[in-house]
């Protein structure tokens, strides 16, 4: 079985990412991220065909990628994503619901259409762009702090009661 991930983003500037970045700026942090990108991140456990199967699936379901307004690429950890300025240091935080209705619904739907998918997991990948010379461990700590909402004033991107976060470099 092969795990294939795709990252989907809006072709136009993403209003959700803009709103999130503005909310982060309002937190008046000492070192806020300079950029914030948002991607729908789909992970497929593919039993046959690997990336080819996922490519077919993406072309079939325009609810996963609407080509009129979204672009997509295969996601591999460590690689930069389209639109990322190389002068910045990028770090990703993957947010997913512990009980994920979108994943279970889509798994069923995709299987019903005959695609060789064992399971599917949907989440949101947030990519923070920090100054290039920022220390790696500090970048990771800041990204996690912003990703997990412990209180009204701390963190933003996930509710720790119902969601999980993972750092993806």
């Amino acid at each position: 079985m092969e795990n294939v991930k795709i990252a989907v983003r809006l072709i136009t500037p993403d209003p959700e990412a803009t709103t999130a970045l503005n909310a982060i700026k309002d937190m008046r942090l000492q070192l806020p991220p300079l950029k914030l990108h948002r991607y729908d991140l789909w992970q497929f456990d593919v039993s046959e065909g690997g990336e080819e199967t996922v490519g077919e699936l993406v072309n079939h379901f325009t609810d996963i990628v609407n080509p009129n307004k979204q672009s997509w690429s295969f996601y591999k950890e460590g690689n930069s994503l389209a639109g990322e300025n190389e002068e910045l240091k990028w770090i990703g935080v993957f947010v997913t619901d512990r009980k994920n209705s979108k994943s279970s619904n889509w798994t069923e739907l995709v299987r019903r259409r005959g695609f060789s998918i064992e399971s599917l997991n949907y989440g949101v990948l947030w990519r923070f762009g920090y100054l290039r010379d920022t220390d790696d461990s500090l970048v990771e700590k800041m990204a996690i702090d912003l990703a997990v909402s412990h209180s009204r004033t701390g963190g933003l991107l996930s509710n720790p009661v119902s969601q999980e976060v993972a750092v993806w470099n």
Partner: protein
Amino acid sequence: MATVAVIRFPGSNCEFETARVLEASGLSSTIYNWNEIQRLSENRADAYVLPGGFSFQDRVRAGVIASREDIMDFIFEEALEGKPILGICNGAQILVEAGLVPGWKPGFIQAALSDNYTPGRSGYLSKWVYLKPTDNAIKKCPWLSAMNGEVIPIPIAHAEGRFVFRDEDLEKVEAHIGLTYCDENGVPADGWPVNPNGSILNMAALMNTEGNVLAMMPHPERAFHLWQVPPVIEGKWGEIRRNASIKDLDEIAGPGAVLFQGLYRYLEEK
């Protein structure tokens, strides 16, 4: 006359009907925009309502962006003063994300309103449900104080209405239940259709420790008048609706009115 402020965020869409039912309940209501903190602080109300809608287009997570707005500092202070605060649907999501409910440690996030999820069903859901208050909520919560324990039908319309708590907090949660989903006879049942969203303990409304802040997913303002109740629903209210004359439809209060009547009485007594 007691005053109630209805707080409108960008994307709120139930502020007018909420203000209207407050007026119809004998209260004076005013709608304030989220950025009118000065005006609001100069005209402090006796109670506050955060109406339904899609504040900030539900960006990032339903209610979270609104919960970070400065006006929520003001609401926070008023809540800690003991003033009644009601969050309806998106307003409930804002209160949860602001850490005002359950409020074990105010300002800290201790609950979530997550995606609807019951076996075989998820996503946005719009339907009438039946609700029952807990005895504790009738005693503590101004909004529920006029209820006598009877079952009331009220509509829901949401995609993220499933109350979730950390496992270690579950023992404490029961004391915070305001309303539970049940059938038309008041019998609770896990799962669709009685519990429409998979909410833990069949919870439809969550209150803070003191009971003055209530976050509820159903829309009482959409069940304020009898004419709003569909004649096809089961139970006592369906029967009242079916037997009502045209005149009755205008004159008889609907099942959702009891929340606003409760607030009215509470504020009058104060």
